[in-house]
């Protein structure tokens, strides 16, 4: 594929992404949005945060080895530490380090599959 064709493809990807981000503002930017849309704007952020957590974990292997254990432990450590210390940065770092250690040293078979 030529660089020109790559450029066209990338431009299409950029246009699609920009469309998904600007669409709500083009639809409701200049006038008062319907009340249902404002209601969605209030209720969606907490719901979407749950969606993103599930999105991140959606391909975890829960039915075969290691049965999602690294993910469960990683989330439990992150959540437990946050409830205990209320420090976002600390628990993101410790949670991620724990998960990486679990994958690389405790369940190394999964890392290679």
């Amino acid at each position, binding site marked *: 594929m030529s660089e020109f064709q790559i450029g066209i493809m*990338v431009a299409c990807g950029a246009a699609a*992404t920009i469309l998904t981000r600007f669409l709500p503002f083009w639809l409701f930017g200049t006038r008062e949005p319907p009340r249902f849309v404002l209601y969605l704007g209030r209720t969606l952020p907490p719901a979407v945060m749950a969606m993103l957590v599930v999105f991140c974990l959606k391909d975890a292997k829960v039915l075969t080895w290691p049965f999602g254990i690294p993910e469960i432990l990683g989330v439990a450590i992150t959540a437990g530490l946050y409830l205990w210390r209320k420090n976002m940065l600390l*628990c993101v770092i410790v949670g991620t380090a724990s998960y990486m250690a679990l994958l690389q040293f405790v369940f190394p078979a999964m890392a290679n599959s």
Partner: protein
Amino acid sequence: MVQALKTAFPHTIPVLTGYFFMGAAMAILMVTSGIPAIWATIMAVAIYAGSGQFVMVGLLAAGFDPVATFLVILMVNARHIFYGLANLTRFRDFDRYRWYLIFSLTDETFALFSSVKVPPEIEERKFLTAIAVLDQLYWIAGCTVGAFAGTLITFDVTGIEFVMTALFVVILIQKLQEKDGRSPAFVGLAVAVICRLAFGSEAFIISTMIALVAVFALLRPRLDPVEAA
């Protein structure tokens, strides 16, 4: 703006870690697929979407098909529509700042916008712009370093992507602890888990988005009693 950047920086450290290594991973994959390295930087600037760019690598490797590219990326990134809806009124008076804020509204930037408390001494639009700019710079840096110097990352970063999961877990907990956030967060969790189990990994985002709008429409008399009346 300098003060806004300084104050915003600590909030963005989880994103710095995640974007740098995930951007690098995307770029290494891209170069391995035979795409010239400079396109990693161009995509980081022009597309700026994590999962979207991973999918772009697959599309580019599969051959020239602009229509499929547009449609697939539209599907992958459809969740951004929700981020716009959630920030409609917030961005309204942000003047020229809003264009960049809308353009750069990724999962992680949206998550930070939903959780940070804007310091009283800094204008909200400047503070949010500072977060958005820093986040994109991390992504551009990761993509560029990965593309041009991917072989220099020699230590094992398996599992580094969990930094994003951890960030979302923490912000979800914050939402569960807020009076107004608790019910929508539980609804979101239930709907997302059910959609993942019922529709599988591929259709997860689209099915969850449709189900969320439907469930929130049904629950409106409970969650929004005054407005719905």
